C-alpha cells in the first residue's frame, strides 16, 4: 500500500497556473485566465460565444507561459455537430498574425477534435482519454480539455421522472469525478460549456434557486437558468455566465422637435460574469465577438 502523505502547499505553483484566453481584459476579469487543475463551466444560451471562447482557448494554450499560455495542445470534445472547422481556421489565421507565427507552424495541428454522442460514450472513453493525456509528446502535451457542450449529452435520453433525474444526477458525479481525477493527475484545465433553460416561474420547483453571485440571470431580455440543475452545479469548480442582451439606443437627430426623426439603433451587448469561483470575487466585463476572436472591452 502506497504511503499516504500530505502535500506541501508551498510546493504548489503560486499562483495556480492559468491559461490565457488570448485577451488581457478577459484574463483580468478571470484572475489570469482559466485555471489548471480545475473544472470551469461556461453557461450561456446559443450563439452567445461559448464555442468562440473555447476555440480561442485551444489556440492560446499553445502560447508559451511567458505569454500566459501552457505550451500545450488541447483535446476538444464536441457533442454538437458539425464541429466549427471554418471558424477555427479563421481564428487560427488571426492568432498567427497577432503572434507573428510563420507558415511552418499550424496551430490547428495541436487541437485534437473528437466527437462524443452520449454520456455513456464519454464515460467509456475516459480510459482512452487518460492514455491520450499520458502519451509522451515531445512538444505540446495535452493540458486543456474542452467539452462543448455537456448539456447536449444529457438532453435526449432522460425523461423528467424522479428515477431518470436521479440516474442522470449519478452520471454527473461519475463523469465529473473521473474528469477531476484526470485533471489532478495531469494538471489539466477543463472547460465545459452548458446551456440555459428559461425560468418558468418558481411553482414549487428549484429552478429559481440562487446559485452564485447573481440573483437573476438575464439573456435575450428574459430570465434564464443554467441547464442540468443543482446536481450538475455541484460538479464544477467555477461557473462563468455569458449574457447577451439587445440594447436599443435612441440617437437624437439634433432637430428642434425632439422625438421626430430620431433613429433607433439596436446593439447587442455581451457580458461575461463570474457566478462562482473559489479564487475570484464577483466580477464581470463586457466583450465583443469579432472576426479575429473574442475580446474584452474596458468600459
Amino acid at each position, binding site marked *: 500500500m502506497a504511503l499516504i502523505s*500530505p502535500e506541501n502547499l*508551498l510546493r504548489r505553483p503560486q499562483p495556480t497556473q492559468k491559461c490565457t484566453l488570448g485577451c488581457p481584459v478577459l484574463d483580468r476579469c478571470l484572475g489570469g485566465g482559466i485555471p489548471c487543475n480545475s473544472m470551469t463551466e461556461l453557461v450561456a444560451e446559443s450563439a452567445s460565444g461559448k464555442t468562440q471562447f473555447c476555440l480561442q482557448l485551444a489556440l492560446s494554450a499553445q502560447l508559451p507561459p511567458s505569454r500566459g499560455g501552457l505550451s500545450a495542445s488541447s483535446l476538444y470534445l464536441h457533442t454538437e455537430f458539425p464541429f466549427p472547422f471554418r471558424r477555427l481556421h479563421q481564428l487560427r489565421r488571426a492568432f498567427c498574425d497577432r503572434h507573428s507565427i510563420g507558415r511552418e507552424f499550424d496551430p490547428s495541428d495541436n487541437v485534437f477534435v473528437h466527437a462524443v454522442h452520449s454520456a455513456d460514450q464519454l464515460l467509456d472513453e475516459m480510459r482512452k482519454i487518460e492514455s491520450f493525456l499520458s502519451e509522451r509528446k515531445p512538444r505540446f502535451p495535452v493540458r486543456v480539455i474542452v467539452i462543448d457542450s455537456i448539456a447536449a449529452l444529457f438532453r435526449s435520453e432522460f425523461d423528467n421522472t424522479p428515477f431518470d433525474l436521479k*440516474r442522470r444526477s449519478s452520471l454527473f*458525479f461519475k463523469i465529473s*469525478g473521473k474528469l477531476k481525477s484526470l*485533471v489532478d493527475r495531469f494538471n489539466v484545465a477543463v472547460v465545459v460549456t452548458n446551456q440555459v433553460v428559461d425560468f418558468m416561474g418558481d411553482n414549487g*420547483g*428549484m429552478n429559481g434557486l440562487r*446559485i452564485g453571485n447573481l440573483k437573476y440571470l438575464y439573456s435575450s431580455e428574459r430570465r434564464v437558468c443554467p441547464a442540468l440543475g443543482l446536481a450538475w452545479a455541484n460538479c464544477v469548480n467555477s461557473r462563468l455566465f455569458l449574457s447577451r442582451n439587445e440594447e436599443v439606443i435612441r440617437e437624437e437627430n439634433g432637430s428642434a422637435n425632439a422625438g421626430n426623426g430620431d433613429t433607433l439603433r439596436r446593439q447587442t451587448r455581451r457580458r461575461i460574469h463570474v*457566478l462562482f469561483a473559489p479564487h475570484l470575487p464577483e466580477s464581470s466585463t463586457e466583450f465583443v465577438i469579432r472576426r479575429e476572436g473574442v475580446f474584452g472591452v474596458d468600459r
Partner: protein
Amino acid sequence: MEVGRLPISASQRGKLIRAGYTTLSSLSSLSPSDLARGAQTAWDMLHEEQLLRRITTSCADLDNILGGGINCKEVTEIGGVPGIGKTQLGIQLAVNVQIPVDLGGLGGKAVYIDTEGSFMVERALQIAEASVLDMVEYNDLLRKEHRKCQVNLKPNDLLESIYYFRICSYTEQMAVISYLDKFISAHKDVKIVIVDSVTFHFRQDFEDLALRTRLLSGMALKLMNLAKTYNLAVVIFNQVTTKYMEGSFQLALALGDSWSHSCTNRVILYWNGDDRYAFIDKSPSLRSASAPFSVTGKGIRNSASNHKRIKLM
C-alpha cells in the same frame, strides 16, 4: 480596530466588551495598573480560558450563533449551495486554528482533505496574509508588558501548517480518513480536520447501496472518534440536493441521513436576498439562530450590511 473584529474567540470578545472595552484603542490607552484595578476581571478573563477554546470563523455574528466558534471534540457539518462560501470558510478555519494561544487561539495545525479540487493556493495565501495582518495589529496594540509573544508568523508559515490531502475517489477518501488516526497521533498539534466536501465521491451510482450506507456510517464514526480522542474539531462540508417533501421541492443536505447521528452540529449556509447567511439547523446545545456573514478579499468576515456587529451574550 474594533474589538469585534479581533481574531480571538467570541466568548473572549464578549467578555472584553462587557467590561467596557469596545475598541483596541480603548485598551491601549490604559496602563496596566488601570486594567488591573477595577477592571482586573477583564484582563484575567482574557488569559483564563485555556480549556474551552473555540476556533473563530473571523465573523463575530457567525461565532456568536456557534457559541463562540467551532468547537473541539465535536463534528460540525456545514452545507450549502455551490458558491455560498463553503471552501472559503474551510480555508478560513484552517488558518484561524493556527492563531497563537497568546492571542486567544489554539495555536494548532490543520488537516484539509480536498475532494473536489476547490482549494486554490493563492486564495489560501490571501486569507493567510489578512490573518497575519490582523494578528500583528492586535498584538501591536497590546501594552508591551502584556505582549506574551511576537507575531513571528508569516503567511507561508500558515500555509505550511495546513496538511493538505487531495483525494480523487471514494476509496482514497476512506483510506485517508482511516489513516488519520495514525497521522494525528504523530502530529498531535493538529486541532482541526476539514473534509471539503464529504459527499462528492459518494453521489455517483453505487451498485450496492447498502455498502454505501455502511461506508458512510463507518466514515462518520471514525471522524467522531478522531474528534473525541484527540480533542480536535472536525468540520465536514456537504453539498445540497433537492428533495421532494410534503408536496414541494426543498433543499436538503446530500446523503444526510447516513450520518445525522454522528454530527454534533449542523449548519446551513444560504442566500437571503443579496446576503449570505448561516443557520444552525441542529445542535444539542445551540439555539436555532441565523447570522449574516460575508466573503471578502480577506476571507470570511462580518456582513457589511449589519451595523449591529456585536450581539451581547
